[in-house]
């Protein structure tokens, strides 16, 4: 009885958790596709709130310095000028960082969207597994 009550109380939290887990799984799949042979991928993000979220993803270790990072996780427009590989969270950011953005994951019309930019994959010498090839865009 007690267990049932606890389950009812925490069911909304569990449902929220499932959405979050879904995103974690996708981001891990993308990270693993980009860094198949790297045990720990160092990630820098422009939003401090993302740190906790990113730490839940296997292989990812958040860092405070862009220089240390293997990839930048960007959620907003800024004037970052470096040529570090970038991962973004919207189509607009993909366009904004089109020279260095290698991939993007974002929700559009309630649907999850994954995009890899072919030109930048070549630039950073990244080869994706076949299962990911359908997400590759020639140009934006």
């Amino acid at each position, binding site marked *: 009885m007690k267990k049932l009550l606890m389950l009812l109380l925490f069911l909304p939290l569990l449902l929220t958790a499932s959405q979050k887990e879904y995103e974690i799984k996708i981001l891990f799949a993308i990270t693993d596709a980009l860094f198949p042979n790297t045990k720990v991928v160092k990630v820098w993000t422009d939003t401090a709130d993302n740190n906790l979220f990113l730490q839940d993803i296997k292989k990812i270790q958040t860092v405070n310095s862009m220089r240390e990072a293997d990839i930048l996780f960007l959620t907003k427009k800024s004037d970052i000028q470096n040529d570090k590989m970038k991962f973004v969270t919207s189509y607009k950011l993909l366009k904004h960082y089109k020279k260095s953005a290698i991939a993007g994951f974002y929700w559009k*019309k309630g649907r999850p*969207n994954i995009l890899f930019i072919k030109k930048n994959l070549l630039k950073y010498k990244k080869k994706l597994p076949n299962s990911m090839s359908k997400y590759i865009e020639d140009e934006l």
Partner: protein
Amino acid sequence: MKHLLKIYVTIFLFIIGSIVYLYFSIDNTQNKLSKNVSSLFITKAEEFAKNIKGKIENEVQSDIVTTLRQNTQLREKLETMLYAVTTDSYKYVYVLYKDKNGEYRYLLDGSTQDKGEFGEKLNVDSQQWDKVFTTQKSDLLVQDKLDSLWVTYLSPIVLKDKTEAILAIDFSPELPNNVKKALKPLKNIFIYIFISIFLILLLLLYQTILNIRTKKDSITDQLTEVYNRNYLRDLLKTININHYQIMMLDIDYFKKVNDSYGHKTGDYVLKNVASRIKKEIREQDILIRFGGEEFLLFIYNKGAITKQAYNIGERIKQGISDTKFLYDDNSIYITISIGISATPGHFKTITEAIKAADSMLYIAKTEGRNQVICDNQWDSKRSKNSENIFHIAEIKEAIEEDRLLCYYQPIFSAKSHAICKYEALVRLVDKEGKIVLPWRFIETILHTNIYIQMTKKILDIVFKNIAKHKVEISVNLNFSDILNQDTFALIISELEENTELASWLTIELLEYEVLEAGESFTKNINQIRAYGVKIAIDDFGTGFANYTVFHTLPIDIIKIDGSLIKNIDTSEVSKKIVKSLLLLMQELEIETVAEFVHSQEVLDIVTDLGATYLQGFHLAEPMPDLLKI
């Protein structure tokens, strides 16, 4: 009680079932309502799609992708039109085209937020979209994998028989949610009612269980866990005695177990005996702890199998005598005596039937214990021994019809040879008017209430004669009559009614039973003597003669057994025994009566030996009236 529990459980299950049914009925209603509402919105969406497609077809004649890529103004115009359709219910309205790689990309988007750019890829369920693209037929796509969407209405835009793009209208999940919200208060009311009913039912169930448990405790013997006398009291009101045989069981020499091993051992034995009995009976049989070590068992016997109770009784008896009761390293072997009333329906009341079973138990005890005595077998056994034995019903009838009377045999003074007193001897008159001697009926009614009725009649007759003639008269009673509560209460009641005459009465106690003058026996005798009644022991000197009774019992007279007197003129041994007895009684200052004086020789001898009183056919035979003193 089992039926009551079944009714409660049925009602409880019925209400729970109804609650579950109603709850799911609401769900069903909600689904139907959602369906109806959504079909309304779908119809509306179909109309919108038709209008939009009509306007696009007006603006674009062919190759919609190239036209709109080149004509930004037209794109904006059409997107404004899509925007006009967008509402809270129609969350997104947009047009996608299929590129050469089979990917779907934005052509037009009427959304203001989350707007897709021309040519931007959108991750959609390609299989469903391809179906619409190929078949050129509209379809409704249920978005069960996406939380933020409910359904998507897809409609192909066909120009010159070629599918150029697909118009999509995403329905907001708020629509079904609103239906749910609208119905929620109703559902909540039902849920609260259901919860309240459920809680009340639980409370009632709990209360019922408590009641049943309390009731069960009140009717269950805590030690043996069988029914107690409270249960018997209720049972007697409802039981159909024709469907049962009655068995009375008593552990033999149980007092010795308590005295020798202690009460804890006694309790252990009682508990295990009850458990052993339970093993031998069926669910429909009823076992009751009737008293200390006494059990009453109702054997269900609707099929009227005469020997059923007897067979069960034999099994119980055998089972218990074969069991070794182990307690505190003591091995205890016990036996049980059983009395059975095989046809309780023949008795007027169930109490009489129980008494009959008790009488059979008594016989089982007096016949040597560890045996089963069934009344029908006992009666037939007696019938075989003597066909002259009266049946219990005949005796009862005779008493009720006042065919009971007393004969009186005078008792003479040994010194003066004058009549001093009389012994009242009971007789029945049969239907033909013949006098019936007591040996033909007394044993049959012993330990029954008929015996008590008879005792009352005799005492009434005797007291009437005492009142009339002012003579001493003795009556015969058994030792067990003094211990039996009912008989003793009757004697006291008669003495109370005849206080002034009580001192003329002598009670002769028959010594065919073991004389064990216990505390209560002595107490009762003293109570009787307090009215001035004399106590005599009949037939003393043979059988169960026990001299220790003189220590505790206040005895006034002993009557020397007739078998010693009748041969006294020919047997030296009898003479010596009688002489010794008379000397002893003189020492104890107890008067003596020599019975069976059947000749002048016997009369001379017992007079010489010093008997106080004389009685016998030589002096006077029993007569229906008192001889004048």
